């Protein structure tokens, strides 16, 4: 049996188990409601979930603009200048060790429990890893390419458009993937903690009244959101692959960053 078929069988098996184990009573429905009752619960309250989803997506979109825009810009600047890089990068990666969740209460005090505090928190949550990823990726641009362009007399504008930007695209995309995933986590986590709207709020509220099917419907929705985002970015990455010819070093680094250390912390 090939590895792929076995893998698909495992996935199918897990889904079937999710339906069968709670039904047969081997796992109490309170701990794990069966797949069908979860989907049914979500379907029955579709309006409520739809409204919450709209709130969450709005918050995610705004925070993503802040986190990824700022992170990619600052990361590009810091990464391409050697002096600030030596100075700042170790500080930033040391800052990355701080569990940023503890900042959320500060934001709720400053900005209230509406969308603003979520956006502020999620932006900061996604900012640091995006910046680290971009700064690390910018360094992988092959200096030979720049040298070749310069010795053939390319102007600064040409160098930027023809060499630096195409070479940086894989980096920027992997930064976007990391940052975006973290922003989704940040928004949902902050909604779960203190909030009055959004999917995280629904999950928390149904959890307090021990309504597991509705909790899991919310969890499923967030999962789908994360998967959809990941797929979208991968699609763009494939479309942009035409830029990456002869960029093995950069591409490898981008892959390493994307799949390695800087993934959503919880």
């Amino acid at each position: 049996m090939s590895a792929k078929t076995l893998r698909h069988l495992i996935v199918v098996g897990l889904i079937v188990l999710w339906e069968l184990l709670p039904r047969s009573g081997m796992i109490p429905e309170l701990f794990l409601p069966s797949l069908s009752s979860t989907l049914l619960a979500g379907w029955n309250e579709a309006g409520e979930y739809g409204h919450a989803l709209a709130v969450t997506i709005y918050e995610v979109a705004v925070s993503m603009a802040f986190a990824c825009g700022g992170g990619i810009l600052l990361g590009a600047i810091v990464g391409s200048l050697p002096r600030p890089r030596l100075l700042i990068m170790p500080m930033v990666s040391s800052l990355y060790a701080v569990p940023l969740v503890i900042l959320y209460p500060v934001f709720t005090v400053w900005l209230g429990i509406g969308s603003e505090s979520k956006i502020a928190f999620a932006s900061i949550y996604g900012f640091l890893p995006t910046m680290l990823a971009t700064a690390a990726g910018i360094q992988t641009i092959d200096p030979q390419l720049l040298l070749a362009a310069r010795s053939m007399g390319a102007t600064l504008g040409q160098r930027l458009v023809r060499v630096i930007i195409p070479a940086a695209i894989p980096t920027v995309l992997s930064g976007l993937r990391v940052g975006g995933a973290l922003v989704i986590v940040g928004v949902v986590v902050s909604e779960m903690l203190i909030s009055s709207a959004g999917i995280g709020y629904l999950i928390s509220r149904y959890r307090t009244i021990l309504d597991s099917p509705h909790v899991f419907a919310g969890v499923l929705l967030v999962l789908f959101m994360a998967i959809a985002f990941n797929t979208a970015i991968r699609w763009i990455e494939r479309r942009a692959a035409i830029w990456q010819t002869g960029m093995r070093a950069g591409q490898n680094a981008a892959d390493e960053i994307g799949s390695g250390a800087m993934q959503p912390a919880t």
Partner: protein
Amino acid sequence: MQATLTIKLARVAIVIAIFALWELLSRTGIVNPRLLPSASDTLATLDDLLQRASVRNDLMVTATEVLAAFALAVPFGALIGFLIAENRYFADVAKPLLFFAFSIPKSIFLPMFILVFGVGFAQKVGFGFFSTIFIVIMSTTTAVESVKVEHLTVARSYGATRAQTAFRVYLPSMLPVLLEALRISMIFNLTGVILAEMYASRDGIGHQIATWGENFQMKQLLAGVVMVAAIAMTFNELIRWVETRCSHWRT
């Protein structure tokens, strides 16, 4: 040597400048001091908090939870990662699944842990374990793959025993990657445990911080944030220091 000293001084200067700006904004009233108590007040509160038995107790609770989750997740994850990396077929089957599990947000499963374990010690450890294990598995696989096949072949052809290969070849090549993995998994672990405490708990430092936030006790809240940040950064720097010490093993 001169250059590194300048850089270190510049870094210290940046940190001092941030605290000075904080102090200034609050003292001059540009920012409402009720919302942002000055840096000196916060540090004084921090000192006061560290004297209190209840805060110390909370720190102890959190530390126990973090260490328990860490002690469970690291050996377990390392074992799974090792098995996956050593068996090609198993790796082909499991890797994409693990990558997928790794890329989904773990925090949304927190309510599930509460439904199963309640809001006590077991739930914190369980969630910390859950948020750490995937990164440990992934890093161990990378670490095993970083062992050079040539080194193994040489060791075997000279008739090294299993123990010798393990300690003379595997361990030295894997150590730098493993230390890095330890550092990152500790970050994940700490975040997981503190989030679980903030979400639903009776004790622990995360719970304290959330309570101070809800009661608008800004001084205590900021002092708590500074405290946790300092602890996390110290641990991080400690492992990084060990990492640079061990880097001469890297071939």
